[in-house]
């Protein structure tokens, strides 16, 4: 994906690289306590993953770059604001680092972590 042709050859950017940027951008966003792997079988509790590419899904069809991210949010934060921040940060970081326009960032809140029940 993400091919660019120059006179010296071409540049490929793998989806893993994009996923990795999205992963790090997300973990720096306030309110996100972790990423949760997608496609969890029903009934299994949401677990937090430490692997950069799990919990992030990058899709590139040669024209549009879409990113899906699956997160666990701290209980007691305003989820809409946190998701909005995550989406803004990912878009900004990916566009800045890779230079590719991001078409969509879909943020999926997979669960809440309750550290302090009020």
């Amino acid at each position, binding site marked *: 994906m993400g091919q660019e042709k120059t006179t010296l050859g071409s540049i490929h950017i793998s989806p893993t690289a994009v996923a990795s940027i999205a992963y790090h951008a997300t973990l720096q966003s306030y309110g996100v306590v*972790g990423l949760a792997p997608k496609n969890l079988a029903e009934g299994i509790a949401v677990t937090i993953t430490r692997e950069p590419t799990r919990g992030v899904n990058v899709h590139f069809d040669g024209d549009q770059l879409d990113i899906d991210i699956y997160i666990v949010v701290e209980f007691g934060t305003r989820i809409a604001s946190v998701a909005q921040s995550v989406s803004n940060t990912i878009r900004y970081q990916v566009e800045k680092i890779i230079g590719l326009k991001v078409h969509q960032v879909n943020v999926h809140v997979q669960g809440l972590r309750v550290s*302090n029940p009020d």
Partner: protein
Amino acid sequence: MPKASFDGLALKELVEAGLAWLRTNQQTVNALNVFPVPDGDTGTNMLLTMQSAYAEIANSGQRNAGQMAAAVAQGALMGARGNSGVILSQLWRGFARGLHGHETIDAATLAHAFAEARDTAYKGVVRPVEGTILTVSKDIAAAAQTATTDDPVEMLRIIVAAADKSVENTPELLPILKQAGVVDSGGKGLFFILEGMLRQIDGQSLDAPLISVQPLSAMNLENALEDVEAGQDWEVVVDFRPKNGFELRSFYEQLESMGTSIQVGEGEGMYRMHIHVPLENRYKPIEYVMELGTITKVAIENLLAQMDELQAGTGAPTLELTNVEAGQIAVVAVSPGTGLSRIFASLGVSALVAGGQTMNPSTKDFLDAFDNLPTDKIIILPNNKNIILAANQAKGVTVKQVYVVPSKTIPQGLAAMLHFDPESDVEKVAGKMSRALDSIITGEITVATRSVEIDGVTVREGQVIGLLNGKLAVAAETVEAACLQLLEKAEAVTYELITLFYGSDLSPAEANRIADLLQKKYPEQEVEVQEGGQPHYQFIISIE
């Protein structure tokens, strides 16, 4: 002897004071933003969060401090905006937890509540970045815990001092702040909230900012001309890069001792200072700034001479944009010329971005315009089909609620403004304005830059051409011939009002001559002439 404890009502008063002081200093906080886009303006986000927090308790008569704090936390949670807002709401949540079950707040509970606030805030993020509002909350809690006073007012004073010190230290922890030569904006916002509380207790004003710093892009030095005071007739503007340890507050105080009309702008590690001083002092500010850092540019002007020129010159009235208040809707319009800017301003536009056919404004120009509006409801009128894209991009990267009314021409933009209502629901207003776009016909008269044949019209380079709703319609040898042909094509006889906006290439006399000609040809219609000031286009014509 101060009160030994705060109850719920006292807490409410403090929250209101914190909100008021943050609002007063909102632009100072916004100006500290170093990250170009991702999260909008910290000051605005924190303010909106605090506003929501206060709205929750505005009508409450709750005397129980714990329950009052819980209501504040609830309000902050519901209104949290952006990263800094979410963190602030978490701080309130922890603070409220620390006060749970306490009817009143004494010094020890206050210290405990700030410790809870810190713990709760730190739990909300996997990788806490130090040198931010989080660090400030940590330093506050530490200072409160080691303090020995049993007077809550004294405790608050210690906390404010700790916050101030912690904020000043943030550049040491976060390199990006040091590079930009600023302190952390979120931390500064928290400091203002706490300081506002203390100022309330001390009976100090919450309305006037101590120092006002604005983004460089927002500095409007032309307008400063109006308030020239007798004796202060030299204007000095200095751009400089401050050395480490630059202290804005003492800088401001020094300037105040030299002159008036002080403005300080800040951006990308650079400062711009503007001041009016008497003749004998005109080199003093420059010498002073030289001690503080590296000067990159100096401008000294005699204001009285400047004023004479201004008055002798065009005598053009100054542009008066419509003031907008928080909660109201503001319109940002793109205008290619001074005359059109004035017309837009008179119709209620709050901010103008210069741009037009050959000078498309950037997304950043729009963002700068948003920055300076104290409201988060904004409607953009791009007034050119090539600018709609930049406007939409700006909408995508700001946290403010922005609607783009896709006006492709100036007359469409003006037509839309007639349906503008700042108090109404922003989505409805934008819809109404969008529907108004097609109610008007736009004609444009310009000179062809190359020979071409489009839409069945053959044009030679240098000929005068007329465009109807953006499409090439007529070509002629003179401006008046093009106008006549264009109006015919537009079936102007079936309309009522023809307005001509003449461009900078045309003299008013010439414009009036052509208007008289058109009026003779169309006696049934009303023909109006207005100064447009746009480049390249002799006329922009609206037909309605």
